[in-house]
């Protein structure tokens, strides 16, 4: 019984794949075993070196998707403050705006007649 799958672009053999997996596993273990075994877990020894400063929490160093627009939002802070206040999430407020603006437009268009 042959385990080799031959395709136009090459061949695939799971036994060979497992052999290479084991080989790379051994190489990885050899590299790992050359490491320093005397380090102490759950101490400063496993933390990154930041010029002696404490490591900030993940929340503080995380770049959020919204941070892409940070400069834009910061520059137009006054405008966004008003806009966010208007966005109450209440449908009745939106209908009121709709009717109010509609009334103003209607007044401009036919009010002078």
């Amino acid at each position, binding site marked *: 019984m042959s385990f080799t799958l031959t395709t136009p672009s090459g061949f695939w053999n799971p036994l060979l794949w497992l052999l290479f997996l084991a080989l790379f596993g051994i190489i990885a273990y050899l590299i790992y075993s050359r490491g*320093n075994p005397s380090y102490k877990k759950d101490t400063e020894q496993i933390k990154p070196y930041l010029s*002696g400063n404490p490591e900030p929490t993940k929340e503080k160093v995380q770049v959020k998707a919204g941070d892409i627009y940070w400069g834009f939002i910061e520059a137009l802070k006054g405008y966004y403050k008003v806009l966010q206040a208007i966005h109450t999430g209440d449908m009745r407020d939106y209908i009121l705006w709709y009717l109010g603006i509609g009334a103003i437009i209607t007044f401009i268009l036919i009010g002078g007649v």
Partner: protein
Amino acid sequence: MGKLTNFKRSLWVFHASGGSCNACDIEIVAVLTPRYDAERFGIKLVGSPRHADVLLVTGAIPRDFADKLRRIYEQMPDPKAVVVIGNCGTTGGVFYDSYNIAGPIDEIIPVDVYVPGCPPRPEAIIDGIVKAWLKIERLEKELEGKEK
């Protein structure tokens, strides 16, 4: 002086300058540059305490830097040694008992070798490093003994 027996690896050094006036720092550089050339023996400065065997500290340590120095020391892998270069770190020097000084250094972290001087000569610094090396070898043997 003891005999170096263990050349399993080169000695890597991290230099923490805590409010130093640069005199000691420039002597450390003199140790590494071609006249004394400690790099011949693999003694070199590294950019992170996590790669270092020896911590070189210069200067009287200001209060703001004390916790950072402690953290740097704690991040070094074992076995490790601390060498204080110059009078400021050794005793406080001319800054002794100043309101903004947290030192001498041995009040912040454990110190293994003192190299007094203002600034100490490169020969004295090399001697201090050799003493630190001997200490590290002894600690390494102790660690190996514990592992067995």
